[in-house]
Every structure is written in C-alpha cells, then in structure tokens.
C-alpha cells in the first residue's frame, strides 16, 4: 500500500459557524470516510475548523489556463461592478 495508489481529495474547512468552507489543500485516501479522517488529522489539528468537506479531486471541473485571456481579462476594467461605493458599517463582518 502506498499513497500513490490512493485517489486525491480536495479539502474544505469551515473555520467557524457562519463562515463559508474554504479550500485548504488536499489529501490522499482510499475512500470518503478515510479522506475525512485524513483531512481532520492534516488540516484541523490546530483548531482551524468546525466543519470539513472532502471532494474527489477528479470531480473538480477547472478552467483552462490557456483561456485566461477570454475568461478573466474582460473583468479587469469594470470597476463599477465592485460594490466599493457604499459605506459598510463597522459591525458587518466577513463581506
């Protein structure tokens, strides 16, 4: 047995209630249950989270870096899409 035989899983951690899960890295594991254990042991051993997701990396659909120009460049000069013209109250966190 070696990790080379095991599929890769992407790991997402919710750092506290109310926040969304964030991608933190990946683990090798033979199945979903062990993937969760490995994610727990690898990424939440210093109180980083309250909830974990693991997703088979093979299931992720990714954009092609070759398409970067058409995918992302057109947004570069459209600052009016940013909600930066509003004053956000100090009490509103995590926006």
């Amino acid at each position: 047995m070696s990790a080379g035989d095991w599929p890769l899983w992407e790991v997402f951690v919710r750092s506290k209630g109310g926040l969304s899960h964030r991608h933190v890295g990946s683990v090798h594991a033979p199945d979903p249950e062990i993937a969760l254990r490995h994610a727990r042991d690898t990424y939440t051993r210093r109180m980083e989270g309250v909830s974990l997701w693991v997703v088979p990396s093979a299931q992720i659909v990714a954009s092609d870096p070759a398409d970067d120009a058409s995918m992302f460049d057109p947004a570069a000069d459209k600052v009016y899409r940013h909600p930066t013209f509003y004053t956000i109250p100090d009490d509103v966190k995590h926006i």
Partner: protein
Amino acid sequence: MPSLPPIRPEDEARAANLHEHGAFDPAGGAQGGALFEFLLRLGDDSLVLGQRLSEWTGHAPSVEVDLSLANIALDLIGQATFFLDYAGEVEGKERDGDRLAFHRDVLDFRNCLLVEQPNGDFARTMARQFLFSAWQHRLFAHLAASADARIAAIAAKAVKEVAYHQELAAEWVIRLGDGTDESRRRMQDGIDWMARFVPELFEADDLTLFLAEKGIGVDPNAFRADYEEQVAAVLREATLDPLPVQRPILGGRRGHHSEHLGHLLCTLQFLPRTYPEAVW
C-alpha cells in the same frame, strides 16, 4: 539498561508482605499509595503507547497516515503528562511527570502488556490500537465520573480524543481485514499477535477493586461485555476470526513486562539520562 533480576524466594515473601500491609491497605492510611499506583497504570499505558506510535513518524504508509499516528501519539503523551504529574504530586517525593517518565526503570512501569508490543507492520499497529482504544475509551468514560475530581477532569478531556482513536483504528481494521488477500492476512496476523494481551485489560486485582469501591476507579469488568460486543462486531465486519478465549497473560500492572519494554525505554529515556540537565 536494567536487566531482569531473578525472582528469589525472599522477593516473593516480600511481595506477599506488601500485599498485606503496603499500598493496598486502606486501613494503614495508604490510600495515597494505591492512588499513586493507579495513576502510574493510567499514565504508563498512555506514555508507552504514545512512544510506540511515535516510532512510526516518517515511516508510515503515507504522509496522511504519518500525521494520523503522530496525532494519536501526541494525544496519548498529553494524557500521560497529566496522569504522571498528578501521580508525582500524590506521591509527594518531588517527582514530576518527566521524572517519572524518564527516570524509572522497567520494573517500576505499570502499563499493560498490550501497549508495549512492537509495532510490526501497519496492520499490527492498528490491531493493537483498536483493541486498546476501545478499552481505554470505556475506561475514561467511567473515570470521567470519578470521585477524584482531578482524574475526572483528565478523563473527561481524554475521552473525546480516545473516541477518535477508536473510530479511526476500527476503520482501518475493517478496511484491511475486508481488503485484499494480503491486507486481510496481515490484519489477521496483527489481531492474532495482540489478542493474547486483551484479557489483562480486564484484570481486577485488589487495587482495582479497592479504588472501584471508593468510586475513584472502576472495575473494567463493568464494561467487558460492551467491549467484547464492539470488538466482535468490528472483526465480523472485517471478515476476521473472533478473538480467541484464552488464559490471561498477566504481569504488566505489577512490573513484570515483556522483553520489549526495556528496549522502548532505552530510546525514550536515553537523552534525559545521559544529559540530566538538558532543557528545551
């Protein structure tokens, strides 16, 4: 390295004498002695298994498993620190947890024989972990209600850690047992190696019964049926043979260990014994 001295008739006579008038005797006001012994048993179980698991660091089948084993080792060594620090306070001879861990010889260790068994392969390590953690989890669940507030607090914290150890180990027993021909053979070998040390976990000697009566400890036979039921269920799911019924092999709780413990202590104790003044 201490070698095992022969047990002479006068030693046996002395041991019999201790039994009557020594640490186990509540009338002599020696409850501190019994409590000290009990804390050594708890602390040494965690210390020795923690040391064993840490031997895997850098050698596990994958980096993820490496971390899993190191996490469990750290949990156990943390428990050992709490129990042995408390043991030192109860003893009142100015020995703290480190002193008890690093400056006792093999005959003074009170861990069960199961935890000192060599790692073998990953399957054997997981077999040992499952058989031990399933027991330790039930023990700590009871000790969380101990009449001794300090033991109750340590157990209440540790029981959550051990719940995870038990679950993780059970998953590996099932996966390797119900896996390939090779993994099944290895897990069966691992269970076969470790199974003979399970009855010792349920040994109820005078000290255990005395502290159980005081509400400080617990007679492990209170949860034996529950333990055996879980072990049987996991082995069944893993398609492995049930644990054999056999004559108990005892001795760990009185300092009569297998040859393996001395070698483990060599590694564990070398640095602090060679450089007594060394600090972090």
